[in-house]
């Protein structure tokens, strides 16, 4: 058994895992399309896609279900990969864009957007991710500055603690700003913070799409650097990686992915934590193996949470973030007590 053989075996395993997850994701999409007050069976979905469905089916599918599902898919993948990048670059297995407060910063950006443009519909909403990205970057900067120690670099546990606090503080400021606007925005902000998929129009799909489809392949291409970071800074710079430059650029990409995603689906925590961890277990620890699996897992988890949230609890929908937290919280505790 030589090294090539092992490598081939690993690649094959990662490939297999990704394929299975892709299959699960497709099944999840079909179930999600089928869920709601008016049911659409997979066969009818196929007919409708081919343009053979009734007008009512066409409307339900293309005006209501599909945009929401596409947004959920994009955001799930985005948040999961953002979590993987944060875990890789900071060598902190507890890093998650939600727990670290980056989502809260993005929320602040969203409310600032609303206070400027007074709407979240129409063509102007293409600008939403820019605002949330700015909010996310500023928050990330604050967190890293506060958890940085001159001698020992970024301290993992302190980073989490600072993130939790920053998240609480920024959420409070966001609520305050939204109350200054009007009552409806205040309610919207409160539900947004609980993590509900609010974006339902195609314009929101087209807004989110470029961020995800451009950044994900780029991250995949740079995944070798993520592997280097897990070895430690000294080794990484020894091998010849320009540690700090590629770390900063990758972290910026992570913030971009997660802030663009949560702009549309609300502050959903823990997906960025669970998906990469599960993917690593399933597909192996090298980033080029588990990144696709993590993205697919993110899709499956968020889609399942959203579908469960809006179907089981009829007639009221429970935000997807609540469903995710019920699974993600215990997992976070498990990791906290296992690793540190």
């Amino acid at each position, binding site marked *: 058994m030589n090294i090539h053989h092992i490598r081939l075996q690993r690649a094959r395993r990662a490939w297999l895992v990704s394929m299975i997850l892709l299959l699960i994701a497709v099944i999840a999409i079909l179930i999600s399309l089928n869920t709601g007050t008016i049911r659409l069976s997979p066969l009818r979905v196929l007919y409708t896609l081919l343009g053979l469905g009734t007008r009512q089916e066409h409307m339900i599918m293309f005006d209501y279900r599909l945009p929401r599902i596409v947004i959920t898919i994009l955001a799930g993948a985005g948040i999961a990969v953002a979590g993987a990048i944060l875990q890789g670059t900071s060598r902190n297995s507890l890093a998650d864009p939600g727990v670290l407060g980056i989502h809260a910063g993005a929320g602040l950006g969203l409310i600032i957007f609303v206070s400027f443009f007074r709407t979240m519909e129409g063509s102007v909403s293409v600008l939403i991710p820019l605002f949330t990205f700015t909010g996310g970057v500023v928050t990330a900067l604050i967190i890293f500055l506060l958890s940085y120690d001159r001698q020992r670099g970024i301290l993992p*546990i302190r980073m989490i603690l600072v993130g939790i606090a920053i998240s609480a503080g920024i959420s*409070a400021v966001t609520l305050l700003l939204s109350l200054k606007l009007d009552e409806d925005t205040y309610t919207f902000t409160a539900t947004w913070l609980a993590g509900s998929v609010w974006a339902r129009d195609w314009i929101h799909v087209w807004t989110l799409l470029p961020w995800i489809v451009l950044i994900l392949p780029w991250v995949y291409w740079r995944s070798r650097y993520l592997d280097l970071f897990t070895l430690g800074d000294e080794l990484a710079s020894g091998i010849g990686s320009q540690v700090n430059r590629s770390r900063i650029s990758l972290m910026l990409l992570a913030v971009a992915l997660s802030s663009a995603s949560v702009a549309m689906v609300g502050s959903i925590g823990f997906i960025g934590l669970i998906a990469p961890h599960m993917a690593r277990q399933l597909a192996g620890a090298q980033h080029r193996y588990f990144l696709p699996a993590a993205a697919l897992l993110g899709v499956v988890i968020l889609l399942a949470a959203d579908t469960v949230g809006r179907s089981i609890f009829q007639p009221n929908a429970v935000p997807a973030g609540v469903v995710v937290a019920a699974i993600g919280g215990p997992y976070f505790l498990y990791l906290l007590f296992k690793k540190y």
Partner: protein
Amino acid sequence: MLFGRQLRIGIWLLAAAVGLLLSIFLAVSYGAKELTLAAVWSAVWHYNPDLTAHQIVHDLRLPRVLGAVVTGMAFGAAGAMMQGVTRNPMADTGILGINAGSAAVVALSFAFLPQISYSRLMLLSFAGAALATLLIVLLGSATPGGLTSMKLTIAGAVIAAMLHSFSTGVAIYFDLSQDLAFWYAGGVSGVTWAQLKLMTPVIMLAIMWAMLLGRPITFLSLGDESAVNLGINVRYIRVMALTVVVILAGVSVSAAGSISFVGLVVPHMARRLIGVDYRAVIPLSALLGAVLLVWADFASRMVQPPREFAIGAMVAIVGVPFFLYLARREGREL
């Protein structure tokens, strides 16, 4: 020397009490409709139901301000006791998830038992607080070598986040969403006279009980070994103290919702002012907690009248920078 210290404690306690009284009068006088101090005075002592000003004071302002006083006292005292017993400078019933446990049970009982009487609700709220406390204590004792204070804080914060998201889910699912702001950040605007009559004696008794435990808690705060050497039954005192904490948190959450950071900030101020003697730290924390919450409530209805801002978020705006400062200081030992 000893006399001087006692004098200092007495002066600070007196100053805090006077400050609290002034804050109460100010908070009752100002609002959507401003009243003169004289009108407030006569409304309190010579209540005349025919006058609008008297009605405003008696029915709207006074219950909520007194609610802020009582819950503030409870959160402040509970925070002081938790910090003393766990020797964790970042302990607070809100941050460690005790308030969230209580709020989750309150949310559930609002959903399933909408006609429940307030006294029953209070008992259920205790149960929620007790369960969350038990969970945290178990997590602490299950870890070999014990928990570092930072780890405990993170675990508590995550438990709080989970329970909070559970409560939000319950509120949205059962269409309690008009009260969503209440679940989100708490508020004393809904406190009624009936609730006050029930919760005030409970909280006052609990705080007195806490003060009786002040001496052993002082020794405990210096370390388990020294407490044992001084003849303190560590386990017994710890259980007693946590029981009082559960009572305080349970009662105040059942009336005002989960409010974090009061119990974090206030004991640090109290210790800075009068030293580590918990017989004095607990009452001073209670008084300062009341002042903080009265001001937070006042600010939350003054930012954008006539709308109300979540009081918990108001306290968080003060509490978070303080928390960050503590985390930075504690982090040195990590």
